[in-house]
């Protein structure tokens, strides 16, 4: 196993475990305020210090990890769930009307800057975690559609696919039974990358107030709250920021490691 895979896997697991653990236990309550003990630096009582309401930052980060992971994960699910079938369908009828329509729609979604989509959706439906998921998820669809189509197109030229066609299998069946398993590795790697982008996007949206709403803790909003306190207590901005970086870095390393592990050919090319 590569160093990337181990380091990335470890970092990612830490956050996933922290998020799961937060359902049953956090060091402190994330709702209890303690104004007397606000903006305290890290200590033995509060390992990562307290915020401007005196809430325990570690507990907030643990519960916030749930929001980040849930939003990014569902957004990847939307992207895969819709993008992969579209990509498969486009490749199965290469150059046809369906292919053209799907790819032009993809171009169109790509043309909308993702943040602008998010803002439009929020303008219409109001800010919430669900709308953040939709906004990030929509942008994931063309990514998966393109990757699937590209990989599937080269597979359609291979002998084993031709053999399946000669055997009388329909294009849909070939796509599901032969193409999909062969692009799965690629999708897992891309899924990891989109997951990390989703974490960043969620943080950005909640930072400007378009993501999960109070009292649900989220990493982005912790940073927004910290902005006016940063000169008094730098740790309130520093710690959530480093948390986001560690999570995203972990996922990116995991993605690189998975790519090398699942497709040894790429490793040779890169080295």
């Amino acid at each position: 196993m590569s160093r990337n895979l181990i380091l990335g896997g470890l970092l990612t697991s830490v956050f996933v475990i922290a998020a799961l653990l937060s359902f049953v236990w956090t060091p402190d309550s994330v709702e209890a305020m303690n104004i007397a003990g606000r903006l305290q630096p890290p200590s033995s009582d509060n390992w990562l210090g307290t915020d401007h309401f005196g809430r325990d930052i570690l507990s907030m980060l643990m519960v916030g990890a749930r929001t980040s992971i849930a939003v990014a994960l569902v957004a990847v699910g939307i992207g895969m769930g819709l993008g992969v079938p579209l990509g498969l369908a486009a490749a199965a009828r290469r150059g046809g009307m369906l292919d053209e329509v799907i790819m032009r729609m993809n171009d169109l979604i790509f043309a909308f800057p993702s943040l602008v989509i998010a803002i439009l959706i929020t303008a219409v439906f109001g800010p919430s975690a669900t709308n953040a998921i939709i906004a990030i998820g929509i942008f994931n669809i063309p990514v998966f559609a393109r990757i699937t189509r590209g990989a599937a197109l080269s597979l359609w030229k291979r002998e084993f696919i031709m053999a399946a066609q000669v055997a009388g299998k329909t294009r849909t069946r070939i796509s599901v039974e032969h193409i999909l398993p062969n692009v799965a590795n690629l999708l897992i790697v891309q899924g990891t990358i989109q997951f990390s982008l989703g974490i960043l996007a969620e943080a950005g949206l909640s930072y400007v107030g378009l993501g999960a709403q109070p009292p649900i803790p989220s990493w982005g909003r912790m940073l927004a709250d910290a902005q006016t306190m940063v000169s008094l207590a730098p740790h309130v901005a520093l710690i959530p920021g480093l948390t986001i970086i560690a999570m995203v870095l972990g996922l990116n390393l995991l993605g690189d490691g998975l790519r090398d592990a699942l497709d040894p050919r790429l490793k040779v090319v890169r080295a």
Partner: protein
Amino acid sequence: MLGYIVKRLISLAISLFVASVVIFVVVEIAPGDPASFMLGINAQPDTVAALRTELGLDQSKLDRYLSWVGGMLTGDFGTSYTYRTPVVQMIADRMWVSLPLALYALTLSTLIAFPAGIFAAARRGGPGDLAVTGATQLGVAIPNFWFAMMLVLIFAINLRWFSAGGFPGWDKGFWGGMKALTLPAIALALPQAAILTRVMRSSLLDILGEDFMRTARAKGLTERQALWRHGLRNALIPVLTIIGLQFAFLLAGAIIIEQVFFLPGLGRLIFQAITQRDLIVVESVVMLLVFAVIVVNFLVDLAYAAVDPRLRTRT
């Protein structure tokens, strides 16, 4: 080439048309009537009705779509519901902040990425390469708004070299304006520089394995001479594509950074317009940003096809 341009132009027009319909429909289904919102909860129904007529809200949806698109084609973006000033004027004012910011950030990211990418590629697998690739991993993981806060903490609050936010306006002098845009541009440029460095590095590495590079070395050039004379020019094609895409992204992606630094750019305009239900402004700014992205993509495609004839037949 002409056939390719015509085909791409048709596709450009269709994209713009569909984008305008999508934006119009999405904004149309937004709950809340702008006229009632502007007049407050105590407004008389007939006053609201009069304002609706004045704003053109009582026309059919098709008529309103056509007059919106028709207006934009002739440079008339309508009148802001809230400020009663022409939207085109508001956009033009904000553009003088957003556009220089995007260009500034793009310049910075290119200035960082080119040397870094070339340095890493020339030392492939060595400690220098590892350091650069490690830095790019970190660069893409850092949220730019957090990086912006850290820049403010260090350079504005502690060192007092820059102001923490705001924009004095270009009429107060060019350098004052540039100074106000420096921290935001650095914050925007960092993740872009990391991505561009990666593209530059991998593109150069691809080129290094080509036959013509082997020939260049065989005729007596050193590795470095071959890289500078033959490798760089060929590696630039994918890099320029990414730079084109990044420009469009920077224009739209500055929304959050403009919030951090309280810059009066397009991003802040959208946010204000959303909170004030100034839908005509939201529609027009979003359409303008999408237009910018689609046109930049189109130009990148054309440039690409001009350089590499094989792409003209691409489906």
